[in-house]
């Protein structure tokens, strides 16, 4: 069997040739959809500003906590910040990325790509990167606004906060990837994502942040990826001790969900 028909300049593709252009093109095209960048970047900050300015008492110093508690002297909006950051972690990963990938699957873009030397994994990887970056920008925006508008104190232990953030990101993106892997259509991706997103926001303290969360919600929440992230962030920001359980929970979610997503991923 001869292989000389191919011209010598041809080379065997690694499957990633042209990935940089794929990433930049995908980013450009993705930004033309107003909703996708908006939700990932601006939505958490809008919630922060809305709660801070429109709910009475959020900017007043807490005086009804015991004077030796960590909450004494803080503002309620400050205790809300970890929840907003957790929300930022969960928004692009769960509400934007799975729908994008399910749309590409439905339109046949993933299949179209599999006929070229580029692997269809390339497009999944580029949206993972795009949404990760969006999330980080969203977090940075929320932090800057929290500082400028509400004078939220810096975290007491930055290392714990950064670790909680990183593990929260990995757990939520693993979950988002699983939704993207199995949802047959964009509408079903959206339905699955939303039915996970809102309960998770509840457990992350969107309606009952930090110190005012009922024990039952807290007990359930610590075993969910976003609830664990919010609790670990709160601990790192205001309290003492290391949120071991929450960190382990996030690691476990990641190592369970990610391989599952890879295994179940449907390309067409």
């Amino acid at each position, binding site marked *: 069997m001869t292989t*000389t*028909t191919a011209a010598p300049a041809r080379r065997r593709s690694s499957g990633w*040739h042209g990935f940089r*252009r794929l990433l930049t093109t995908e980013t450009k095209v993705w930004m033309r959809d107003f909703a996708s960048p908006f939700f990932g970047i601006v939505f958490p900050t809008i919630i922060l500003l809305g709660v801070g300015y429109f709910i009475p008492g959020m900017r007043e110093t807490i005086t009804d906590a015991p004077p030796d508690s960590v909450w004494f002297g803080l503002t309620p909006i400050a205790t809300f910040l970890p929840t907003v950051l957790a929300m930022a972690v969960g928004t692009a990963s769960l509400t934007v990325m799975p729908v994008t990938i399910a749309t590409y699957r439905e*339109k046949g*873009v993933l299949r179209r790509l599999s006929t070229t*030397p*580029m692997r269809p994994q390339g497009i999944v990887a580029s949206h993972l990167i795009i949404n990760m970056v969006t999330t980080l920008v969203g977090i940075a925006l929320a932090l800057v606004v929290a500082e400028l508008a509400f004078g939220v104190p810096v975290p007491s232990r930055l290392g714990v906060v950064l670790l909680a953030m990183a593990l929260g990101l990995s757990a939520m993106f693993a979950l988002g990837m699983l939704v993207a892997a199995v949802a047959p259509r964009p509408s079903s991706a959206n339905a699955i994502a939303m039915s996970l997103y809102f309960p998770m926001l509840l457990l992350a303290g969107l309606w009952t942040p930090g110190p005012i969360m009922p024990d039952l919600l807290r007990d359930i929440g610590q075993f969910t990826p976003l609830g664990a992230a919010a609790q670990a962030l709160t601990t790192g920001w205001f309290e003492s001790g290391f949120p071991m359980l929450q960190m382990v929970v996030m690691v476990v979610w990641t190592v369970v969900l990610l391989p599952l997503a890879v295994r179940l991923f449907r390309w067409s």
Partner: protein
Amino acid sequence: MAQPIVEVSNLRKTYGDKVAVDGVSFTVQPGEIFGILGPNGAGKTTTVETLAGLRHADGGSVTVLGHDTQRDPAAVKDLLGVQLQEATLHDKITVGEVLQLFAGFYSRPADPDELLALLDLTEHTDKQFGRLSGGQKQRLSIALALVGNPEIAILDELTTGLDPQARRSTWELVERVRATGVTILLVTHFMDEAERLCDRLVVIDAGRVVAEGTPTGLIDGLDDERTVVVRFGADDAGRARERLDRLAAEHPDVARVEELDGTPGEIAVSGTPRVLFAVVPALAEADLVPEDVRTVTRTLEDVFLAVTGRTYAPQEPEPELTTEGVRS
């Protein structure tokens, strides 16, 4: 004949207990337009997707440019351009962007600007995919199949959904592309498209090859019957029918005479290839001047009827095929 560029041998593919491709074999020579023709659901797309290494075969072998695409699908990705049925793009990506993007995947890409010119898309470079017409989308799809400078381009149901004018200009494009030296595998359920474009073709029905050859070869291989249709005005129709019936009884080259349904006064005379020579003098002698004379051209549809015993119905209901087993 040169070394074949594609060799498919006894290819089998099943989905559950449904056999989609049942022992298909053919070879494609460099530089030809090779057709895979058949009704919807015949197994055409499964065949080409398997030969392109996009699906696992259940049996048989496929060699493309010397590579076994079942064992090593990545080996041909750089050499093969594939235009898939029903694959679309992001609505907001522009024509220019997507061509540049795809060009970047290949080791020896074509010049995207030249391709745009070849496919009459230059003026639409900055248009977003969602705003293109059906014909423009189809031309872009061909451009994407060619942007890697492939040795072989697989074009699947290229003109489905296009208006007649767009179909004809797409056919011209395919011929222009072949003129640049690309071997083309054309998958189609349109008989006229296959007849017009293909140098050679296989007709596939229910997962099997039922005919193989050049379009004219296949048509010439049918039985030798020829038909002449003559049309008369109301005054002459009766007399003409009588005269032709008599001719059928007397003349060895005339087998039968039928009045056609639909158009009044239309009479079909069938017989040997010399039937025309019998009909014309008989009418001339009786001074019967037809308003219209035509000889019935035979097409690949007649070939399909002859080999399957069924009238060609391209829109047969598609059997349920899962997309399971598509490779990443």
